């Protein structure tokens, strides 16, 4: 862990990624402290200051009802990260378990589980999430549900392939010959050998979940106002381009930096942990 961090910081590109990720995470955690207008995360209206370009008081300008954009972006990070963490916290255990069981037990179990996974994988992710959101109410919880439903199959496929390879290793045979149970062999022998690949994919995916969630709310299907969300901020401002450029550029840049940061770290982790899958 410590060694990994040292290597991460030694490479300028991955160090930049760590810096971006740290900035995003810290600003989300410390939003209440660093933000000039904490109350602007909700339904506040200040028509005296609406649609102002960046200034000393509002470093990223104000939106159409006069709220400080910088404050809203920082709070949006909080929502996006929360969404990403919750989605992965649900999707990863499901996907990992499906992949482990299918890959280790094989036979009919493998057939059923992996065909089910294929069905989910065959639907374009955004379309699947949109159709779920279309049926359900567009709330934050349902947004998480929709993104989770499209996310677990990727982990099932990844862990399935890893398990298939690990199953041939001698230590798995040794544990079986010793009489260890199937659950033990799957979760205590095979799973630890899949962890580097899973961690790498999770890091990359945190960026992608933020991107997908933003895409959904850009289409009006995600987080609903007045809760700040990067995707809907970009959508709201798009009509006023190019004159009120700050309405779209700063939230867009915020998405870019977060996704870019998680990608840089994820790519670096893949090399360090040797999880090339």
């Amino acid at each position, binding site marked *: 862990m410590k060694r990994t961090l040292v290597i991460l910081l030694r490479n300028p590109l991955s160090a930049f990624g760590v810096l971006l990720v740290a900035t995003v995470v810290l600003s989300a955690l410390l939003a209440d402290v660093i933000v000039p207008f904490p109350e602007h995360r909700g339904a506040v209206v200040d028509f005296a200051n609406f649609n102002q370009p960046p200034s000393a008081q509002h470093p990223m300008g104000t939106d159409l009802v006069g709220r400080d954009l910088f404050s809203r972006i920082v709070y949006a990070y909080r929502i996006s990260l929360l969404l990403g963490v919750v989605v992965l916290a649900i999707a990863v255990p499901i996907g990992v378990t499906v992949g482990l069981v299918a890959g280790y037990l094989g036979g009919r179990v493998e057939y059923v589980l992996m065909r089910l996974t294929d069905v989910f994988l065959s639907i374009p992710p955004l379309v699947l999430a949109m159709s779920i959101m279309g049926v359900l109410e567009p709330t934050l919880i349902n947004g998480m549900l929709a993104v989770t439903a499209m996310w677990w199959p990727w982990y099932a496929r990844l862990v399935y392939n890893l398990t298939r390879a690990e199953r041939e290793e001698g230590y798995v045979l*040794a544990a079986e010959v010793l*009489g260890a149970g199937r659950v033990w062999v799957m979760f205590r*022998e095979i799973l*630890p050998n899949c962890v580097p690949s899973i961690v790498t994919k999770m890091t990359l995916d945190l960026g992608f979940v933020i991107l997908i969630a933003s895409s959904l709310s850009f289409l009006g299907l995600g987080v609903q106002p007045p809760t700040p969300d990067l995707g809907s901020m970009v959508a709201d401002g798009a009509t006023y381009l190019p004159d009120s450029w700050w309405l779209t550029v700063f939230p867009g840049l915020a998405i870019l930096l977060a996704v870019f940061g998680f990608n840089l770290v994820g790519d670096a982790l893949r090399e360090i942990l040797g999880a090339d899958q």
Partner: protein
Amino acid sequence: MATPFLSIEGVRRVFGSGAGEVVALDGVSLQVARGECLAVVGESGSGKTTLANLILGIYPPSAGRIMLDGAELPARRRIEHRRAIQLVQQNPLSALNPRRSVGASLRLALDVHAIGPRAGRDAHVRRLLEEVGLPGEFARRAPAALSGGQRQRVAIARALACEAPLLVLDEPTSALDVLVQARVLRLLDDLRRQRGLTYVFITHDLSVVRNVADRVAVFERGRLLETGPVAQLFAAPAHAYTRSLIAAVPVVTPEEDALRARIAQGGPAS
């Protein structure tokens, strides 16, 4: 032989079905007495590893039965059968989980079979390591910090951990350096004598056979060609195939011996 410890009776094993059917073993019957070391030799594809997997219960025989100490082993092995038959694999690099310490790998055997009091198992692990000639503090190391020979010793310690009377040794020395090979063979031989273990020793190396085995079973393409005491088989092989296997062993002639002695003393080779 009164009651053989391990008895294989008319065993056949087929893989696949229809046109892709492969008969890996056919009509194999053989017995191993308690405390005996039976060497199983043959080229790759002769069915040696299939035989090992059948004994270990990795998969059941298509026909025939396998008896241990007078009782038939079921297709689905129970925990006491697992405890009775253990394995040392060919490749020491993959036999230990790279993500777990050596001690954790050994402890698994003690935990699965509830051997000894829970609190004493870490000490037991260290004792096991010492029994195979490794320092007890190796328990904390990762397998990657051990050499091939050391890992193979750990694998042997794991096989001993659950006090199995029967060990299947699947080419346990063929992935090791020559010097390490000799030491591991010596260790296996000593353990067998001290503990009265029974070995099914799979190998393709006839010089190993001559050193450690009591009897030899020669396999060719899934069939048991002949069995017999080592000395008899080397002196009077019944089958042409056995003769060709023996002929393939590099023999040290007196001339060659003298040559080696000169080289060892630093003299000219010719």
